[in-house]
């Protein structure tokens, strides 16, 4: 792999520069500080060379000629002149042509002030237009989706949005229509550009042709304040710029992080910030007595909490905490310490029964996104990645299409990656472990299922060190044990393979690393494995493994829990059994809700403590690949709300304990000593320019001077180049995330300590499978599947996203539909014998196994959970109307 270090030398405007072989002139020149003007070129899209703005003089065998810098790769000894009279004349000519039909409505255009067309026109300054003819006219902006408006008069036909939609997102829902001067971008009539990724087209549009509904007329670029941050919409950890105007969030932009998001964001991440601006935000502590709720001061609230808490401390297992997956790492560490060392309870769970056994993550070799896209084989044992980790889907899709990644998918229903998978195996719930076994076992028998045969051959032929397993939750209904055993079986069978976490909640991976799950301590240690430093700092840790969320709820319903903390958690909508959750919450003496927004479960809280939202506080988060990156603070926190770590410190103080933290620096000072995973890190180190892309933990390499690459496309937002380029010069490593950081020491013994817990016998850790009751005839086994726009709390409070949540539908396979005589599009009722869910649209999809019904999980309404509860897993479908 040494050729990536090879360079070629060329001369640009008289200066010799170095570039990578194959790199386009425009990119090489940019790194050397020469910004060649451009519109259509985007570093993450295949070049098309259509706008012709980047014409420069390049010397060839017959002397200098004008060539598009975006389309010509560098060559050894090449001579390029970007600023000659001839090149300038060509560029000016193109610019004048582009302006000929451009409306010049800059004063009312969102792009005004950050528009490369405008900027370059100032530089070129033709003064008066020589174009005196009638301009092209189209009706003013038309919505091409709920989120995006298109103004065709402003469009300069750069092909960026259309290339993005087709090549990157794989959804050619917008296209060029017409020919020549009448060419326009548009959708098919009545088929809107409803893509999860539509916002990216707005970000990359070089003019104001595409604008986002949530941002239109909200702010002017020169009024914006901005900070770099990490998106917490899910656990991919996309790098972003958060922009605000007058203490209100107005826009997110995707930063170009080589390791993570390649500048893309999904629409949920991009526009979900609206929930922070929601008028429903909780801003004051609230105390409830019976049905009477009253606002209180923090002091009153703490006093109110101290008494039941002090009582409960006598029986630590009567205190439990659910939630935390949305917290920052610092909050999680502090809450972890509060629970496990002060309260003495291990009944702490950041997963709501919708995740995986944390040991799969703490006891395996973890893969990075770069490992996954660069793997030979990626085995998917997860839900539909586009629905759950959208930008990771883009990365995987690209790798499958253009760098030969072979995807082997085990799924209950066709997914968004099925078209790009080398093998897609449809399995029924309960059959996952058995199927994986047939993939890896040595028997000479040829599997009868052709997709299994293909997959088996692919896996057998692959270098185990280049196999990555993407482990998420294939089915939100029922137990995950079968699937967990499948993951363990595969990893045990392929020593050297790695696991990429597919757990999707924002910082659930950080929560696991902070020990905010049962049985764990910070640093991926079991309760018995705490370091000496940890024991010193924490004094005590629980010895009994605590309860998981479903167990906590069951215990609570039994009256065994006295104080229950819900931290950013809504078990009524989110945990597998809403009725159990209701019974549980009703029974617990003191429910304490630490929340930014009210939800179904806060109704049961006797104390509500308002938390600061992301963008209102500093901190860090950990993504699927264990990359820790910073959250930026852009707003002052709402009302009296506070960051969760401070709330923990206050609670400790209220019961007369001292956690020992006054600032987040204090938190890191302790964390980086007690946790082998975080050894050597600090907030300063995380904030240094060399680690702007975040730090992978444990830190395995140090002091290699590869600075991380985070930038914004200068054509998208020319106004903020200066901010983004203020770090050290960025490298443009292709495909390789940097895992080495200047200024941070790798600590061999810490790495060793983390690695030593990786067991070769993962399966032995897991319980043995339960007997599966046979399925009655006419019964269907449910698969509960997540959708990106699921009507969850964040979505419901983001006014432009709310409407996007589709009504839940039920999907069955062709033969199931046929045997029941149902046609696609029928209205059906789903029934579990006791409850029913009516008025569902039936979808027929050949990619669903026989006897299985796939149901879309909905969010706050929690309706589907009410029919598919806990372990109650036999459903029937009744036809209402065709």
């Amino acid at each position, binding site marked *: 792999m040494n050729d990536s270090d090879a360079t070629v030398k060329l001369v640009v405007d008289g200066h010799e520069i170095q570039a990578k072989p194959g790199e386009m002139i425009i990119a090489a020149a940019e790194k050397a500080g020469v910004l060649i003007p451009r519109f259509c070129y985007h570093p993450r899209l295949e070049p*098309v*060379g*259509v*706008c*012709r*703005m980047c*014409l420069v003089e390049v010397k060839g065998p017959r002397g200098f*000629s*004008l060539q*598009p810098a975006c*389309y*010509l790769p560098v060559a050894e000894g090449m001579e390029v002149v970007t600023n000659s009279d*001839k090149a300038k*004349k*060509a560029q000016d*000519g*193109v610019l*004048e*042509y*582009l302006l*000929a*039909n451009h409306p010049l409505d800059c004063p009312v255009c969102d792009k005004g002030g950050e528009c490369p067309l405008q900027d370059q026109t100032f530089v070129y300054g033709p003064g008066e237009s*020589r*174009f005196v*003819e009638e301009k092209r006219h189209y009706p003013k902006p038309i919505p091409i989706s709920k989120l995006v408006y298109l103004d065709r008069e402003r469009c*300069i*036909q750069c*092909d960026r949005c259309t290339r993005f939609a087709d090549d990157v997102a794989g959804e050619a829902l917008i296209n*060029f229509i*017409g*020919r*020549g*001067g*009448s*060419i326009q971008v548009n959708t098919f009539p009545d088929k809107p550009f409803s893509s999860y990724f539509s916002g990216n087209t707005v970000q990359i549009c070089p003019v104001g042709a595409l604008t986002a509904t949530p941002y239109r007329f909200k702010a002017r670029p020169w009024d914006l304040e901005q900070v770099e941050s990490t998106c917490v919409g899910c656990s991919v950890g996309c790098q972003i710029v958060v922009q605000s105007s007058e203490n209100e969030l107005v826009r997110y932009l995707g930063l170009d992080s080589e390791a993570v998001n390649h500048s893309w964001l999904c629409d949920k991440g991009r526009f979900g910030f609206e929930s922070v601006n929601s008028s429903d935000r909780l801003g004051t502590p609230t105390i409830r007595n019976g049905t009477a709720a009253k606002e209180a001061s923090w002091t009153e609230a703490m006093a109110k909490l101290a008494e039941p808490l002090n009582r409960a401390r006598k029986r630590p297992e009567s205190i439990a905490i659910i939630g935390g997956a949305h917290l920052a790492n610092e909050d999680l560490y502090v809450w972890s310490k509060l629970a496990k060392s002060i309260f003495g309870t291990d009944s702490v769970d950041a997963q709501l029964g919708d995740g995986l056994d944390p040991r799969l993550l703490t006891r395996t070799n973890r893969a990075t996104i770069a490992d996954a896209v660069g793997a030979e084989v990626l085995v998917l044992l997860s839900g539909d990645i586009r629905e759950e980790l959208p930008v990771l889907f883009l990365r995987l899709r690209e790798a499958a299409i253009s760098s030969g990644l072979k995807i082997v998918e085990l799924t209950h229903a066709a997914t968004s990656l099925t078209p790009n998978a080398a093998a897609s195996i449809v399995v029924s719930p309960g059959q996952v472990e058995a199927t994986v076994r047939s993939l890896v076992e040595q028997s000479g028998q040829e599997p009868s299922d052709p997709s299994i045969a293909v997959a088996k051959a692919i896996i057998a032929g692959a270098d185990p060190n280049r196999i990555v397993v993407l482990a998420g939750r294939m089915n939100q209904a029922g137990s995950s044990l079968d699937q967990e055993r499948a993951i363990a079986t595969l990893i045990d069978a392929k020593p050297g393979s790695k696991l990429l976490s597919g757990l999707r909640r924002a910082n659930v991976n950080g929560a696991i690393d902070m020990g905010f799950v049962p049985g764990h301590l910070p640093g991926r240690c079991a309760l018995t494995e705490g370091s000496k430093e940890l024991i010193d700092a924490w004094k005590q840790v629980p010895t009994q493994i605590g309860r998981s969320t479903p167990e906590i709820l069951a215990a609570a319903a039994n009256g065994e829990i006295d104080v229950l903390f819900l931290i950013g958690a809504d078990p009524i909508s989110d945990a597998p059994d809403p009725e159990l959750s209701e019974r549980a919450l009703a029974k617990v003496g003191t429910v304490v809700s630490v929340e930014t927004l009210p939800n179904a479960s806060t109704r049961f809280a006797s104390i509500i403590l308002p938390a600061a939202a992301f963008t209102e506080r500093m901190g860090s988060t950990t993504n699927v690949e264990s990359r820790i990156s910073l959250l930026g603070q852009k707003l002052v926190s709402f009302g009296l709300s506070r960051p969760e770590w401070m709330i923990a410190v206050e609670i400790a103080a209220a019961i007369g304990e001292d956690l020992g933290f006054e600032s987040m620096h204090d938190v890191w000072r302790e964390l980086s000593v007690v946790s082998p995973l975080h050894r050597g890190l600090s907030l300063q180190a995380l904030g240094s320019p060399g680690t702007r892309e975040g730090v992978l933990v444990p830190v395995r390499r140090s002091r290699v001077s590869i600075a991380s690459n985070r930038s914004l496309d200068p054509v998208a937002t020319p106004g903020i180049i200066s901010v983004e380029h203020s770090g050290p010069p960025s490298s443009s490593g292709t495909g390789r995330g940097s895992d080495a950081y200047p200024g941070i020491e790798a600590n061999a013994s810490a790495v060793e300590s983390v690695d030593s817990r990786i067991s070769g016998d993962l399966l032995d850790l897991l319980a043995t499978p339960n007997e599966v009751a046979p399925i009655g005839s006419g019964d269907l086994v449910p698969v509960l599947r997540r959708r990106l726009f699921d009507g969850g709390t964040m979505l419901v409070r983001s006014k432009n996203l709310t409407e996007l949540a589709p009504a839940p539908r039920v999907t069955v396979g062709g033969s199931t539909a046929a045997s029941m005589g149902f046609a696609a599009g029928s209205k059906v009722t789903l029934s579990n014998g006791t409850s029913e869910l009516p008025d569902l649209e039936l979808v027929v999809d050949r990619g669903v196994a026989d006897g299985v019904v796939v149901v879309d999980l909905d969010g706050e309404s929690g309706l589907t959970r009410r029919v598919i509860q806990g372990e109650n897993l036999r459903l029937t479908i009744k036809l209402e109307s065709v």
Partner: protein
Amino acid sequence: MTLAPFKIVSKRVDDPEAVGLQGYLATGGYQALKRAVLDLTPEAIRDQVMQASLLGRGGAGFEAGRKWSMLKKSDVRYLVINGDESEPATFKDHMLVERDPHQLVEGALIAGYAIGAARIFIFLRGEFALGLERVQAAINEAYEYGAIGRNIFGSDFSIDLVLHPGAGAYICGEETALLESLEGKRGFPRIKPPYFPAVIGLYGQPTIVNNVETVSNLPWIVMNGGGEFSELGVGRSRGTRLFALSGDVIRPGNYELEMVKNTFRDLIFDPEMGGGLAPGRQVKAVIPGGVSAPWLGPDQLDVLLGQDEVAAVGSMLGSGSIIVMDDSTCMVRAAWRIAKFFARESCGQCTPCREGGSWIEKVMRRIETGSGREEDLDLLMDLCDNIVPGVSWPPQQTTICVLGPSIPSSVATAIRMFRDEFLLHIKEGGCPYE
């Protein structure tokens, strides 16, 4: 001064019987293909074509033999016959496909055999409904006859031939736009380098694109030898060629002439060819190779009809279509009409072509319709300069394909040759010819 001593590609066009298989066979049809697949190796045919110096007849004038030799090695290669013929005033392929479809099919099969194609596509201009009917009928007959399909004439050679209709877009004559169109996409020319179709063409496979007339020569070459072919003509321009003569002449039509034997004057005035102009009329200008070519003046009529000969006087033979404009013609209107054509036919990818083309058209329209300004002439030249730096010939290119650089040809030569006429339009506020 003379028609060709014998005709090669147009010998059957006046014989309605030859459209069908029987008539074609009766006039020596499919003898060449038989000889090719039964007696000759592909290399031997490629040698003959190389010897023939068969220049492509589609416009660019690249030697067919050399193009074939640049084909990248690959198991799957394609041959695509370019029958999109939309260059204004070009109508030779139209005649060939309607009146001698089997010759085209046979020529295509020979080329397919010579280059080892996996399949042949004939891309025919969609408007040629009769041509589509006749070529498809010929293909059907040829399958029946054993000239296409498995084991052609009992040889080891098998190939299929598909007729593909275009749908009306001039740019699809450009070979890479044609391939895109054949792939079911918009006719956007592909950006080069490095994608010459011979390296990466249809479906990403090495592909040869040859014009209808080009391959229609192949049966004759196989029967008579490349050497015989190159006996005709001079220099690089060998054999015969169809010249499509139109405009202000008494006898417009297609004339098959030996290359480099006749001058423009011969073609226009010979009684067996153009037959001269209407009584009392003089030649004002001639467009020598389709509307992409710069115009020639009356003083250039003695240039010989050969590729290099026309290039030597700053224009091109192009598609071999010659448009004669007499002295009753308004040069502003003629140039404007050509500008309008390019503005309508730009594919729309490149800014200079898309915006420049329609801007130029608008200014030309203003001048012709009476709202011209004196500074418009400089503006026009500068707009041309922005598409073709220096407004030079052969044009330097700022665009992906050469449609863009073709825009200035007519406008710039019209302004250069007939500046006074432009000024008159501007001064009089309208067209003096109306």
